[in-house]
């Protein structure tokens, strides 16, 4: 063992992390099974998939690169508007529209990435928030293009891949969103398991030391920020296409704040956090909204406060204990 070169050891650990854990496979099988088991809940499942993708995007920058953002909705909304406008004026093909939404948001991420390279956490929070607010203000005042406060109406989507027409129950919508989520997830998983992903974690943990050991700090951060922006754009595009409507709400502040909550609840830095958080968040929202629709915000706020004040250790400790027990059982069964 000790005779191995460092390269070989790093390579082995990278390959090891790349292998799929049975629990991961079970997760995706469950996500697919939900389509058959919960045929009445497909619309909310679709929302969960979109929120999950959005949270995955935030996880890439927050969990892996340590970039805090209070304005991630900027990319979500930009992607949504780009996809919506593309569908309305150019082509109704969903997959092309998705690509357009992703590249538009990615481009915006690339252009705004210099802003997050400088300054402390506080400056980053402020600047990202400012960018989202500027976009919201722009979307509001350019009513001729975006429809302003009325939202972007009259989007007609063609069938996915020319085969599957969107229906009102959300069957195609959910499968489409889930497929996109899965493909992008696998890509993200591959990326964070690569040397590039490792260097991001090095930057997150100690930027000074990372740059001293030859990691090009700025370019890595620009790259991951652009990637995350494209992911958020994809989530926005999915929302625009599956609901065939885009409103100013996609750029609202509460969307960024909720997203933060989703990711923090699920836990940042292991990719599944956003997805699990999205499920938990939507369920919570559904339950609370069913008995106090108007004061939903209060309970979310209370939840946030309690969570940060000490609930996190409880929840995550509980999850870890369960996961650990399951893993031990699995190991015992395999030996």
């Amino acid at each position, binding site marked *: 063992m000790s005779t191995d070169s460092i390269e070989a050891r790093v390579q082995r650990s990278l390959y090891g992390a790349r292998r799929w854990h049975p629990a991961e496979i079970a997760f995706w099988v469950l996500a697919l099974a939900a389509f058959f088991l919960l045929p009445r809940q497909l619309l909310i499942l679709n929302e969960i998939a979109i929120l999950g993708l959005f949270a995955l995007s935030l996880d890439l920058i927050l969990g892996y690169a340590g970039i805090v953002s209070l304005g991630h909705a900027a990319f979500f909304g930009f992607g949504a508007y780009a996809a919506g406008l593309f569908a309305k004026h150019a082509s109704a093909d969903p997959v092309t529209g998705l690509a357009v939404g992703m590249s538009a948001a990615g481009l915006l991420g690339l252009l705004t990435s210099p802003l997050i390279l400088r300054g402390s956490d506080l400056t980053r929070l402020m600047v990202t928030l400012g960018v989202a607010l500027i976009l919201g203000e722009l979307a509001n*005042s350019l009513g001729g293009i975006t429809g302003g406060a009325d939202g972007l109406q009259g989007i007609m989507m063609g069938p996915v891949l020319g085969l599957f027409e969107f229906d009102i129950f959300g069957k195609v919508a959910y499968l489409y969103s889930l497929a996109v989520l899965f493909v992008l997830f696998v890509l993200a998983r591959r990326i964070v398991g690569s040397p590039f992903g490792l260097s991001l974690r090095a930057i997150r943990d100690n930027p000074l030391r990372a740059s001293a050991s030859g990691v090009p700090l700025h370019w890595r951060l620009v790259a991951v920020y652009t990637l995350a922006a494209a992911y958020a754009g994809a989530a926005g595009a999915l929302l625009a296409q599956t609901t065939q409507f885009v409103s100013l709400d996609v750029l609202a*502040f509460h969307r960024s704040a909720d997203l*933060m909550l989703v990711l*923090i609840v699920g836990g940042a830095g292991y990719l599944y956090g956003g997805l699990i958080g999205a499920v938990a968040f939507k369920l919570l929202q559904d339950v609370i909204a069913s008995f106090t629709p108007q004061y939903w915000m209060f309970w979310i*706020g209370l939840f946030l406060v309690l969570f*940060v004040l000490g609930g996190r250790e409880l929840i995550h400790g509980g999850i870890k204990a369960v996961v650990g027990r399951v893993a031990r059982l699995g190991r015992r069964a395999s030996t």
Partner: protein
Amino acid sequence: MLTILFDGVAYGMILFVLACGLSVTMGLMNFINLAHGAFAMFGGYVTVLAMQRLGLPFLMALPAAFFAAALAGLVLERLVYRPMYAKSHLDQVMFSIGLVFMAIAGADYLMGSSQQFVQLPAWLSGRFDLAGIGVGRYRLFIILLCGALAFAMQWGFTRTRFGSRLRAAVDDARVARGLGIPVNRLFALTFAFGSGLAGLGGALGIELMGLDPTFPLKFMIYFLIVVTVGGTSTISGPFFAAMLLGVADVAGKYLVPQLGAFIIYALMVILLITRPHGLFARGRA
């Protein structure tokens, strides 16, 4: 033109009173308190209630708003804020956003979602002409009151024992603690005072900014701009930042209304890029 300037200065004065408490707490404990606006809203509602239910005159309601918000700040600091100081910025942001959400929904539940109004006394309403400038009486009152407050604070900050301890603690809390300065007590007091000022600002601002449950979110960005642009180590920094913001905002809304708040946000982003440590920051290692 000068009227716009005048209105802008009045607006900036209110912003300063609202935000300076935030700048001190942020500088002192390095704590990002996005819920600062909630204290302002609280002060505003206290004023409204005191005037409508208890029939207090406006001038009496202002101190009531100050003390109510300060008390709320004192209690909350003790109970929920203190454990947050040691946590990461991200946690602090999440926590204070949670507080904002609760405050919004709570205000909505207790007071309804409609705009609140107060009846200003007769001697404060209306405007008069002074050398061709339309001077609103209420705005003049605000400028005088907040100007006096700013001067008092500047004096207290630079000339008194409390102020010098506070500055020492802002510069380096650990060393200050080592020198026997009771940083925690200092901070609790400052927090309460800052919250009280926010409450006062909220009360004064009902007439100019309106008051409804979304107040903390709507103006959160303004406070943050004042603080980030003005820096956290002086009183004058946030003061000039607030003036700049107030004048720019009012001028923007009068002259190019279709751009709306766009100018402000763009200004903030540009300022933060060019001067990441604030417009008037002292050189700091």
